[in-house]
Every structure is written in C-alpha cells, then in structure tokens.
C-alpha cells in the first residue's frame, strides 16, 4: 500500500533558517505528530518511535531513520524512516525528499516529495485512507515546522546565517540535546496542530475499523 505525495508549503522564514532547521533531524522528527528520536546511532542514523494515543486508538511504531542525502547547494535533504508497530502486525515506511526554496529574505518554500508505504494490518484495514492521511500528516508536519521556522527566524541574527555546511552537519548531535519532540509539544505554536494531529490519527484508526466492521458502536 504505497502513496506518493508532492507538496509545497510556504515557510515564514528565510531559506537559510528553514534549511538549518531541516537538517536538524530531531527537530524534524519533533515536527512529525507523535514522533520522537530515541537514539542517535551516528551522524546519519537514528532510532525513533512514532507513537500516538488518542481516544481508544493507539499505535506505536518503533524503527529507524536514515539521513540519506544532504545537498547543501540545492538545500535538498532525503531521509528514510522505517518501522514496525508494537504488536508486530503492521509496518510503515516513508522516503522523504525535502527541499527549501528561497522566496525572499523572510519567506521560503518547503517542497516535499514523499513516498509512504504501509504494510500488514494497517494496510489491510486502514490502507484505503493512506493518501488522505499521509496528506494530513504532511500538513501537520509543515504547520509544526513553519511554527519553528517562525520562532527561529525571529531569533536569527545575521551571524546565525551563513553557517557552513560542516557546522550544520554537526548540529544535529548538539541539537538533539536542546531540541526534541517533547520540546515541540511545549512549543505553543506547535501544540494546537499537535492536537489536531491526534485527530487525524484517530481518523486512521477509526477508518480501518470502518473497513472491517459491518456494524457499529
């Protein structure tokens, strides 16, 4: 059960700020509803969980995120996340290529191309919701990400920009201390979208339910 999504989201911040944030995998994960980096294996490999509990629905995927490519010149980043759910009955993976396009000094675009695939029970019973769900996931992600960009953009000083790619690549390690998924929840601008992210995962779960059950509550 695969779905491919191409999306462009406007970012309230400069390309360099957005790009810097984009390379901070923990922050990126933090923008993913319910996602969390649990361990950094090396510069490009992380362990993490995507776990959501809402209403009666709970699904938690544990897996790995690999930073596949960072192209400083094009501001392109590609990462792949894979995982299995806690009951071992579903699998999910996302191959995301994200690019930051400059618009002007205070705005940019996040251009995302992602291939999402779901396996097992989640596909059997929730599969037909895939595209709309992934679509909403990205929207939630973008909203959270934009909120961060805005915050960082405000803080951004001329010195802050123009940091070399070297520095940027080292940043995730350091950043993982300062910024994390829990920080994202704390982030007031992220909080409401995080809540509606609950809403959407609630949707996923209830959807396969609908596909399964002939009957009702």
């Amino acid at each position, binding site marked *: 059960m695969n779905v491919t999504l191409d999306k462009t989201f406007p970012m309230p911040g400069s390309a360099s700020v957005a790009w810097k944030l984009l390379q901070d995998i923990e922050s990126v994960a933090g923008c993913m509803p319910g996602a969390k980096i649990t361990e950094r294996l090396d510069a490009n490999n992380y362990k993490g969980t995507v776990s959501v509990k809402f209403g009666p629905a709970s699904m938690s995927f544990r897996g790995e995120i690999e930073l596949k490519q960072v192209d400083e010149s094009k501001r392109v980043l590609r990462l792949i996340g894979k995982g299995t759910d806690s009951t071992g009955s579903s699998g999910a993976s996302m191959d995301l290529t994200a690019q930051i396009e400059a618009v002007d000094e205070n705005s940019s675009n996040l251009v995302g191309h992602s291939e999402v695939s779901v396996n097992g029970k989640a596909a059997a019973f929730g599969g*037909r919701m895939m595209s709309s769900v992934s679509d909403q996931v990205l929207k939630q992600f973008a909203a959270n990400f934009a909120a961060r960009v805005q915050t960082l953009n405000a803080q951004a000083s001329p010195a802050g920009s123009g940091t070399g790619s070297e520095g940027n690549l080292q940043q995730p390690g350091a950043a993982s201390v300062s910024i994390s998924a829990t920080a994202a929840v704390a982030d007031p601008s992220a909080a409401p979208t995080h809540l509606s992210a609950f809403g959407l995962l609630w949707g996923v779960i209830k959807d396969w339910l609908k596909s399964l059950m002939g009957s*009702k509550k």
Partner: protein
Amino acid sequence: MITSHFEYHAPRTVPEALKLLGDLGEDAKLLAGGHSLLPMMKLRFAEPAHLIDLGKIGELRGIAEAGNEIHIGAMTTEHEIVNSSLLASKVPLLVEGAALIADPQVRYKGTIGGDISHGDPGNDHPALMMALDASFVLKGPGGSRTVKADGYFLGLYSTLLEPGEILTQIRIPIPAAGSGCAYQKLKRKTGDYATAATAVQMQCKGAKVTQVSIALTNVASTALRARDAEALVMGKSIDDALLNEAARLAMSICEPMPDQRGDEEYKRAMCGEMTRRALKLAYQRANQA
C-alpha cells in the same frame, strides 16, 4: 482476536458516567453497543485502559413525544427504533434508515447515540439526522448544551463532542403531516456500510416542493448536506430533468474515499443515483400523503 487488558465500569447514572469520564480522562472510552469498539480492541488497534459502559443507564433509553419534537435516548437501540410505532407514524425516515443498518443481532445492541458519536461518514444516522434537522443534547462536566446535527460533524471521526462529554439525547422536530421521505442505500450485502446513500425529507404543496432537505452518507469525510440540490428543487415540481440536475449537484460535492466498494468515480455516480431515487420516492410519498 483478543483485546488487551482493561478495567470495566458500569455507571448507573449520567453524572456517575461523567465523573468517571472526568477522572479517568484520556485512558477511558465510552462503550455503547460495542460493535465498533470491541472488534477494534480485539485487533489491538485500540487499547483503552478503561471502558465505561453506558448500557446500564436507564435514563439514556427510550423514545418519547415532547411537544413538536421526538426525544430519543442516546442508548436507544436500532431494534427499538425500527420497531417503534411512534417513530413509524411521526418520523418514518428514521425507521426506514435504521432498518438498513447492519443485521438483526447488531441492531439489538447498536445504539443511535453510538452511531452518531462515532462521527463515521459510513454510519447512516448522521445523514438521517441532518435530513431531519435533529439536535443533540451533549452533557459535560460544565452542564448541558444542545447542538444541531447540521454542523455537528466536523470531519472524519471528529464531531463537536468534547472529551469529557456524553451525547445523551437526540431531538427530532416532528415533520409536518403530509411530508414525504426516503432513504436510499446501496450496499454490497447485508451488514455492509453504504457504498453511497441519500436521505431526503420533503414537503409539498400541490405538486410543488415547499421544503426539502437532502443529506448524503459515506461520500466524504462527513455526512453532507446537499444544499445546491435542495435549492434547485425548492418550489418546483419534480420531473426527470430536475432529478438529473439534482443528482449532478449532489455528486459535485462528493469526495469519496476509494475502497473495496468502489473507486471515487463509482461512489460519486452512486451518490447521484441514490439521490435521484430518494428524491423521486420522497416526492411520490409527499404527494400521496
């Protein structure tokens, strides 16, 4: 197909249930008929730590006439609705719709409140409620509020019902005598959700439509009110050309999700077909009445 562990609670009154819901918070889920929640829990997609069974709360059951309204307790079962002579005479649309839900055993347990709270666009009551201009009584820690069915369904599985609130009663204005109604539902087999379905409640003067509401099941992330189609038929007498146009207008607002029942094109087309049939039948009935 075994659920994980949970605690079971069976409050006897609504305040008791509300208190439990408040105390247990996000870990608790309300149990109505159970035919959605329990299978979901058996597949371990849902693992609530607490179930609050509303089944033992007598005040949540029953169908009564109150002035120009029918009041239905949220835990009233589909079986009770299908067999209610009061509803048969006053709100036949609800009886016609409920009779097409699931199967006999499920109708003995499934409740109208569960169906509505679920906010599932595949459920039949949301569209029926919209067509009937029903209101819902929501009780919460802060007291009680009444909201219109039209506007209650926000998106897939999200409704105006807040965490900590319980839907306790459904209020349906009794349609004027001489109304016509119809619920046309296409499904693969008994027990299935609608591929598409349309509910129509209508009044006519002479051959002219003087009041009409049209609501659509399972063709978007919520039940839909087909307002353009309603506007089109208002004040007119219905013929095939008008039916075609009304169907086209209904189809134009569909955003169905593809599944084993069909792709978007088919579901949209079936929404049009069910709309045309429901309108035609409701019109006939209104004119016979």
